[in-house]
């Protein structure tokens, strides 16, 4: 006990300020997002949209066609499993308000996507992907811009704005062309900022 008290160093005002500054830096480093979920979902959705755009344009053998057909659902399932693991089960030494805010916001948006899907189906009585795609993109764009704001990361904010504008562009296009625009939008709003965040991560 005495040795513990001996280590209870009293500080002068300059030392106090130094401790405050150094430790606040420690917490700040923990607030940074490593961007891994942006990378994972960016690539999954980029491949999915590109596949939808190219599938009828390319002539391919039956085994390749089947492989691609099963590849997309497999990627989506793996992405969902990885996201749930990262959000709820991955061992983390700290929990930050930024992380909690992002988690709530993204799960709300995902729930919103399901609801919009149901509402559209109830109103139209059949799936209308030409309409659904741009609406989904707007919701995702909002989440990307808010994430950029929370993380103070301008590239992500810019990516989100481009994603929203791409949604508007898509609304003028037939479904097949929408997939190409959407693939490019995922590249700009998720893959590029995600990789930049990953490069800057706290190692």
């Amino acid at each position, binding site marked *: 006990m005495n040795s*513990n008290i001996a280590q209870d160093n009293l*500080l002068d*005002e300059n030392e106090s300020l130094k401790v405050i500054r150094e*430790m606040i830096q420690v917490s700040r480093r923990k607030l940074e997002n490593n961007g891994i979920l942006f990378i994972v979902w960016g690539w999954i959705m980029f491949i999915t949209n590109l596949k939808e755009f190219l599938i009828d344009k390319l002539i391919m053998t039956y085994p390749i066609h089947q492989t691609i057909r099963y590849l997309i659902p497999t990627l989506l399932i793996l992405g969902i499993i990885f996201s749930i693991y990262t959000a709820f089960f991955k061992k983390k*030494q700290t929990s930050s308000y930024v992380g909690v805010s992002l988690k709530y916001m993204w799960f709300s948006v995902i729930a919103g996507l399901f609801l919009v899907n149901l509402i559209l189906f109830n109103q139209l009585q059949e799936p209308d992907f030409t309409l659904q795609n741009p609406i989904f993109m707007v919701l995702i764009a909002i989440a990307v811009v808010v994430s950029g704001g929370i993380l103070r990361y301008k590239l992500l904010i810019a990516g989100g704005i481009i994603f929203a504008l791409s949604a508007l562009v898509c609304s003028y296009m037939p479904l097949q062309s929408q997939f190409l625009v959407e693939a490019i939008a995922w590249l700009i709003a998720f893959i590029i900022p995600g990789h930049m965040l990953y490069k800057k991560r706290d190692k």
Partner: protein
Amino acid sequence: MFKDLDPILHSQVRLAIMSILIGLESAEFSFLLENTNTTKGNLSFQLSRLKEAGYIRIKKSFRGNYPLTTCKISPKGITAYEKYVQAISEYFQNQTHFNK
């Protein structure tokens, strides 16, 4: 004159713990140990002092078979920390004033 500094916070390790916790929702014992440059025993002792003062909340649980201690700053701790930072800022402002 500048205000008396809170004696609970005016120690290197306790101030370091509070400065980390102020920016986070919660932090594990191992994280605090890595970043406060102290020993396990001393960290436990300083955490108990902060808990006794009502500045932090400590949750003991298990991860797998291992004990897990998680610390979180309390509203009383946030107020005390803000007052401490305010007192330090005033001290430096007064110093600048006297040096002029």
